[in-house]
């Protein structure tokens, strides 16, 4: 049987010709009907005439792309039909409202996973493997050196680090993505240790998370509510704030929470005092487990170590190929890795 192609990889992004639908297009136009996997900037861009996303993605998309976007939101596993193609969203476990997009047409099923992780972070709905013929996977951490440790242990270490810094009369500054990572960190901080301050970009997203019913400990604005010359606090900030912005919190210790922190050279280059290995992307065993669970014969490997991972999957007997996209994975947390295509 000839293989069907439900998705084409075009200049503007992933495109389903049968449905005339784009998934996370990076050069959107007003004529586009776009399905958005999640609200990170490299996946959700301004310009599409119509957006479809998960309910929990809705408020964040409106916050980031504009209140007036033409957006429809649906639940997980709630199909919509477009030109005869059945389209549904399934939990990706990446951030609040993140989804895999399932497309089905005449018995052929394709799944575009966007960004995903397998461990349950207790905030986003946990990842569910969706059986399919063809699977489009990210490969941000697709090397066997990337293996995440138990997250509970990591959270304990994070709080212990904060407590030690406090006992030494210092503030703690921890850097992570403002959308997703920051909330995951904050949700696990122990407010019994001290006050949690957050950067403005994170404050905005926190409000949206809280409205969606995510329980976060009390936080204060690092911009407007920080009490000068106090120590023992923890400040949560996006990686872009690593610069002069942090000076007012002196004396302090710094840390980055990112999957990249698994590698010594990368950790050292970022010149922070600590690295916590915490990622919202699947690690090597996670990627393999996910791909295996879909039962897919064809795998398209996007952003990350796409060349290496495809080769590995081919050696496992899968039809796998790298695909160039403009998705970036966890790159903001370590800027210089931009477009890490190998």
């Amino acid at each position, binding site marked *: 049987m000839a293989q069907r192609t439900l998705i084409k990889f075009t200049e503007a992004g992933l495109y389903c010709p049968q449905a005339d639908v784009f998934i996370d297009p990076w050069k959107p136009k007003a004529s586009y009907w776009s399905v958005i996997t999640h609200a990170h900037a490299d996946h959700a861009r301004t310009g599409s005439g119509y957006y479809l996303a998960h309910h929990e993605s809705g408020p964040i998309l409106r916050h980031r792309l504009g209140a007036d976007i033409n957006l429809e939101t649906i639940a997980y596993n709630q199909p919509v039909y477009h030109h005869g193609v059945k389209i549904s969203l399934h939990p990706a476990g990446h951030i609040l409202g993140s989804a895999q997009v399932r497309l089905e047409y005449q018995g052929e099923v394709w799944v575009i996973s966007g960004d995903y992780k397998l461990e349950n972070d207790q905030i986003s709905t946990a990842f569910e493997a969706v059986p399919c013929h063809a699977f489009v996977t990210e490969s941000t951490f697709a*090397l*066997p*050196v*990337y*293996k995440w440790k138990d997250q509970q242990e990591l959270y304990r270490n994070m709080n212990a680090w904060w407590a030690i810094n406090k006992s030494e009369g210092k503030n703690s500054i921890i850097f992570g993505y403002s959308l997703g990572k920051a909330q995951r960190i904050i949700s696990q901080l122990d407010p019994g240790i001290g006050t949690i301050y957050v950067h403005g970009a994170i404050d905005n997203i926190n409000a949206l998370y809280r409205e969606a019913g995510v329980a976060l400990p009390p936080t204060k604005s690092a911009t407007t509510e920080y009490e000068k010359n106090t120590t023992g606090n923890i400040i949560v900030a996006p990686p872009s704030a690593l610069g002069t912005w942090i000076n007012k919190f002196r004396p302090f210790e710094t840390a980055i929470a990112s999957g990249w922190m*698994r*590698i*010594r*050279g*990368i*950790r*050292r*280059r970022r*010149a922070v*005092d*600590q*690295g916590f290995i915490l990622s919202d992307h699947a690690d090597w065993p996670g990627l393999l487990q996910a791909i295996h669970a879909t039962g897919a014969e064809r795998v398209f490997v996007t952003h990350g*170590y796409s060349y*290496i991972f495809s*080769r*590995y999957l081919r*050696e496992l007997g899968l039809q796998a190929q790298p695909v160039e996209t403009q998705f970036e994975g966890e790159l903001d947390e370590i*800027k*210089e*890795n*931009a*477009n*890490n*295509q*190998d």
Partner: protein
Amino acid sequence: MKDFAELILQLDQTNKTNEKIKHLAAYFAVASDQDKVWAIALFSHRRPKRPVNTTVLKTWAAEVANQPLWLIDECRTLVGDLAETISLVLPSPSQKGEKSLSEWLDVVIGLHKLSDAEKKQAVIQAWDSLNQAERFVFNKFFTGGWRLGVSQKTMINALAQVVDIEKAKIAHCLMGDWNPKKITFDELMQDAGTEVLPSKPYPFFLSYAVDVPEQEPLVADGFLAEWKWDGIRSQIIKREDALYIWSRGEELISKKFPELGSLLEVLPNGTVIDGEVLPYKEGQILPFGKLQTRLGRKNVTKKILEEAPVIVKAYDLLEYKHADIRQYPIEERKKLLLQVVAEAATENLQFSEVVPIASWEALDVLRKTSRDYAAEGFMLKKKGSPYLDGRKKGYWYKWKVEPFSIDAVLTYAMRGSGRRANLYTDYTFSVWNAARELITLTKAYSGLDDEEIRQVDNFVRRNTLNRFGPVREVKPQLVFELAFEALQPSSRHKSGIALRFPRVKRWRHDKKAEEANTLEDVQELLKAYQPSV
């Protein structure tokens, strides 16, 4: 081992020297004596001889991790360090290990006696009882190179906090070829004399670079000048009827220079000279390149001895008639040195003359002609100064001649390692030949700041023309000014020219690729600089 692995992690997570000293001192304060000795040995590059080569180690790791070898290689390229890569890809340990640092080193040394199969079994067993941080340390016993930024000075400062010995003496104690397996901590800390080891060198006294002496400000009256000879800085020791030649990198190089063996006959026992090993023929000092070709060779052949024989230019005298005279003023030491050289009466040992300083301007005129004398510039040494150890402000300065420079085009890039792993930081540069084709001239690293490195990295990723394994050919577009110390003809380089110590000086944003220098320009430099020998 756990405490040592923890120390490595702590050293790794700070760039501040004071923090490093704090962590090291805390370790030395609690570690057992034998662990201390080994830690000192490891930080001063005294790794035990490796019982297994790194390729074999990698193969075993691939097998245990159940990964193809090519994937391990890819990981290595991205991680930038094999020891670390292996530590990361192995499955979690199934046993708990309680061995100390020195016990693990005993295991490693013990491997030499085992068969290949037994070695493999022992290494795999070790991996299975160590956590990731400990495995990294264990693997480093085989692969070497910590890149932790722990200098000898840092370590000495830390040791000085836990033992009641002055720093200069500790520095001396740590020199030479002591064996960490045989020496105790107390013996190591006491052996600043020659009772135990007649081969023991003194710590080298080093200098700071200076660009414009009057700006420092240095007073011309207060300094002695001598040529900064361009060879291998060495210490020549004659004690107990044996001759030892140490390089500044604390390598015993006596065997590499058999022609200096004759010094054994002419120097009295109890003599230590600080000097420069220089290639020298028919009354003339040869360019450093002649010596460099010799260093790479395993065996010293007759041909080499004929083409590039060496001599010692003696700068200083550290030990005279069995007495440590480093505290004598330099003028005094120079006077005694002159006497030692005169009594030796051999062409193999020559006195490095003091060059009079009329004024900085006058010396500068002479400095600009350094290359005519096969020198790198001048050493400026404070009058009346003792011979100290390491670098000390206010005593010795090097005033080097300007490096050569040339504008070249970036044509290939490779990922760096260590701190620069995962970034394209190892560059290859080209210049234009007569047919207006780009010809590879040299590789060069560093010289760019982190932000520029990121920009070039980004350019490389977006302008790749071809991939050759880890190497990327890039669009010839970016121009950089390269600085280098010397150049010489070479049959091994495509351009026919080898550069010495090339580095990126600055990014020429103002130049297009077409405006870069030509091979002919470089050949002109070579011609002008080739000495008339």
